[in-house]
């Protein structure tokens, strides 16, 4: 009887260890999961929102416009300022920034009506288009970032 319990317990530990190793494996591989339905939904909705709110200036292909509107297709700023990018979609940006070594001074208006989910969708789209392949940007991640930028702004 007790043997059986021990065996079952060992089996449980084994399964857990196996599952854990798989998870560790997938997170170590560095390749984001882009096969899920949720990811596809985020990208599709994100693209729609991008075309509506962002592409006037940043262009449909993310190239930006001269040194007036910065590019998103290749952007060291986007790579280095992930949480700030989430915040500026909602709250805009007034200070000059440097993108790929060039300065941009045109203020960016925010879209305060964007929900955390919509920001997550746009972020998933722009961070998985052109030169970017970062994987899904989850709404929970956005929500915590947005809370932080509100306190930083006020």
């Amino acid at each position, binding site marked *: 009887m007790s043997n059986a319990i021990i065996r079952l317990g060992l089996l449980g530990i084994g399964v857990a260890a196996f599952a854990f190793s798989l998870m560790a494996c997938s997170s170590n591989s560095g390749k984001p999961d882009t096969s899920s339905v949720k990811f596809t939904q985020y990208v599709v909705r994100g693209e729609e929102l991008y075309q509506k709110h962002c592409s006037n200036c940043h262009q449909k292909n993310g190239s930006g*416009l001269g040194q*007036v509107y910065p590019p998103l297709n290749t952007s060291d700023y986007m790579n280095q300022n992930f949480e700030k990018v989430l915040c500026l979609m909602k709250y805009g940006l007034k200070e000059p920034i440097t993108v790929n070594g060039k300065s941009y001074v045109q203020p960016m208006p925010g879209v305060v009506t964007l929900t955390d989910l919509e920001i997550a969708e746009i972020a998933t789209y722009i961070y998985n288009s052109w030169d970017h392949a970062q994987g899904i940007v989850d709404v929970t991640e956005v929500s915590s970032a947005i809370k932080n930028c509100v306190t930083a702004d006020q």
Partner: protein
Amino acid sequence: MRKKIIIPAAYLLLLGVLACEQDRLPIFGQRQVVPREENGKPVNDTVYHTIAPFTFTDQDGKTVTNETFKGKIYVADFFFTSCRTICPIMKTQMLRVYQEIQGDPEVLLLSHSIDPEYDTVELLHDFATRLEVKSDKWHFVTGQPKEYVFDLAQKSYFATAMEDKTEPDGFIHSGAFLLIDREGRIRGKYDGTKEDDVDRLMKDIKRLERE
């Protein structure tokens, strides 16, 4: 026998003239017929709508008037730098026109700011520099008061430009590109936010140059 040849030949000639007429771009606006005398005989002159005299300052602080565009073809539009709705698309499209005509000394571009209080010469200079365009080719102009530019837009260019505090950016304006010929007449109106309409403009510039 001779008649049989003359009639079809006359038809062909007429067709040729019609085709030639169709190749010419329309002239916009009201026209007036003004009678006068030439060598004692009455003659009628057709007077077309032209762009009224104007004076603005461009991104280099230089004065820009009708004289600047005398004998040239130019494309005009109305915008403001802080606009986030249609202006960025218009500027993207105007940049395409610029790239097409930059080596052509016969064609110039003229972008009027409808927000002269905000769009100072310095700001327009910075904007043009950032678009990497030459100021002798593409003039970004500003001039006070704003009613002056609104009036010119509406009465001379038949383009909408006015203030409206209920709009997100505070102005209503059309995204039109106007094609002006060497005599200051409007020869085409295009939607500066639509790529295919701007393609048509670029073709019409070539047509106008051949007239």
